[in-house]
């Protein structure tokens, strides 16, 4: 009877299941199919010629890819260093104050990313909030802080802060205090406790936070456009240009596929290294 139930359930769920699977996979498959089409075509009824991948290699797109991955890596490392002490305090020290910080960080997400970044432009530009006040009060002046690579990384750190912070808090809260105390009792230094207890036991949180921030930052372009004045061109920007001004859908698709493959393999590698069930609250 139970088997019969299960079969019936599966059968009636099948249409919805197929629709869900199709709606997830279909766009990716279309992008994949377009990426092997000859240049400048707008449908899939052509012989595949893979020429878009050739253009990708010959036209120096690797530089944009390297900038996107490089700035994403730098911002992820910075985010980890900045968020760790705060996450530790939120998980182990602050108690009820944690809620205040959580609400404060979450509230920033209610405002669109572009508006928040434009706020930074008005703050940091020449004649903006900082330089303008300094000039009015002291007569001293300096060039604005915008339109360079460090400010792009700053933008990424600012925007993706919550995506690192909350998984870290979750990860650190999984470290049992007993283990930390036992290590101290057995003579471990603070550094050893951090390196041998805190880090390994909170690894699922670290991996989730790092993956989220890295993946989002690698595909970001608002930071480089608004704060960075496109001091460097990132891969997401190239993809947009190929689809719009270039009117070259196969090239845009090929660039997207390369980015998806790189980020996808990193994600699979990262996730396979830790026990994600523990952070999801299962398997305990």
């Amino acid at each position, binding site marked *: 009877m139970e088997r019969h*139930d299960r079969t*019936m*359930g599966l*059968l*009636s769920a099948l*249409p919805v299941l197929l629709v869900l699977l199709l709606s997830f996979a279909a766009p990716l498959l279309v992008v994949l199919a377009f990426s092997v089409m000859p240049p*400048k075509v*707008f449908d899939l009824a052509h012989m595949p010629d893979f020429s878009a991948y050739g253009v990708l290699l010959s*036209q*120096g*797109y690797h*530089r*944009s890819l390297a900038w996107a991955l490089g700035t994403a890596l730098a911002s992820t490392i910075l985010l980890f260093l900045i968020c760790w002490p705060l996450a530790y305090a939120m998980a182990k020290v602050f108690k009820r104050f944690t809620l205040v910080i959580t609400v404060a960080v979450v509230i920033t997400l209610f405002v669109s990313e572009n508006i928040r970044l*434009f706020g930074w*432009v*008005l703050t940091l*530009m*020449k*004649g*903006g909030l900082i330089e303008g006040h300094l000039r009015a009060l002291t007569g001293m002046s300096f060039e*604005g802080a*915008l*339109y360079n690579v460090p400010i792009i990384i700053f933008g990424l750190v600012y925007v993706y802060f919550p995506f690192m912070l909350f998984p870290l808090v979750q990860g650190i809260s999984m470290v049992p205090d007993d283990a930390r105390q036992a290590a101290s009792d057995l003579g471990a230094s603070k550094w050893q406790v951090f390196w041998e207890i805190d880090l390994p036991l909170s690894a699922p949180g670290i991996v989730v936070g790092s993956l989220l921030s890295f993946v989002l930052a690698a595909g970001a372009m608002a930071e480089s*456009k*608004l704060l960075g*004045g*496109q*001091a*460097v*061109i990132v891969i997401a920007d*190239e993809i947009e*240009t190929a*689809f*719009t*001004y*270039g*009117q070259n859908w196969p090239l845009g698709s090929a660039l997207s596929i390369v980015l998806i493959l790189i980020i996808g393999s990193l994600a699979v590698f990262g996730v396979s290294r830790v026990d994600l069930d523990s952070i999801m609250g299962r398997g305990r």
Partner: protein
Amino acid sequence: MKFTRRQFNKAVIGGAGLAAMGPLGRAFADRNDQMNILCWEGYNSDEVLGPFRSAHSGATVRAESGTSDPDMINKLRAGEVNVWDLINVNQPWAKAQLYPEKLIKPLNKDRFLPYFDRMLPEFSGPYPLAFADDGELIGMPQRYGPFSFVVNTDKISREMAEDQGWKLFLDPNMKDRFGILTYDNWNIMHMCLTGDQNPFEPMDEAGLETFKGTAAAIFGGAKLLTDDLVAMNTALINGEIDAYFTGGTYTASPARYDGATNVRAITPNSGPVDGKGGVVWIELTSAVNNPDPSSLAEDFLEFVQDPDIAKAVSFAEGTYNPVSQMGDEAVFSKFDADELDAIQWDSLGEEMARSLDYQVISSYDALNELYNAAKRG
């Protein structure tokens, strides 16, 4: 939970019923009570759509604004010809891509040709680029504007900028003093003009080499790149930069109307193509080749010729632009002195005379590759 045969049958029958409703529902729909327009900002504002909705109560009028011509064209190419009734893009895209690919269709000449008579002299001819090569009328012109570059006249005088023209951006003194507004198709055209080349003629190897050099020099001298005209005007007003490459009344007018009249769009005095160095854009609003057309589409095209609505289109939110209907006194009288100053009416006629019509860039693909390579640095 038990799952009975009866429940299973119900689910299957329900699903089948829903699936059958889809195609049936379509057959009964009457599209003459719908009108969907895909446009640059302005046509989607309440000042324009509100009166049209009141005049056609019961009709569903939808508008969506795009952020670039190719963005909007991508939507039609991706199958949205079934959705939209009108599309509003710059004329070369309509003529070179939309019409040949049958994404738009000709307008009724008997109905629309008389409107050209009341337009400004540049358009009353009627405007030749509103017609396809086969002579069909493919769209109605309304907003337009010279589009070359913009300076802060407190730092660079209008006379000097007009005399120096595009060479201003190759001047070593200008290094790190200008921005590039990344409207890429415009920049390609303007970089050709900077290098004394004709963007509308096919380019040979030597020509491409010249373009490569110009693009590298201009990107090399730029302090910032952005596709956001507000960010660019802000940088200009605050002194981060003194000029920006690619801009015109369309980008300068919001700053000017806010009181920053030192932001001024410049059209060079001379240039390499028939002695002209400036370029003018002209939007065409065209009927989408929707397989299930709505009669409201042409009604709307007629509706925006009305003086009040033409003024509303001209001064809709975002950017302010002259309209071809300003040749009609009834339309012109709706503009006050500040509004005319925002769109640089004082010099508009002479700037138009020094400007080339924005056309299809002959070697666009090859130039676009070189342009993007230079942008990457």
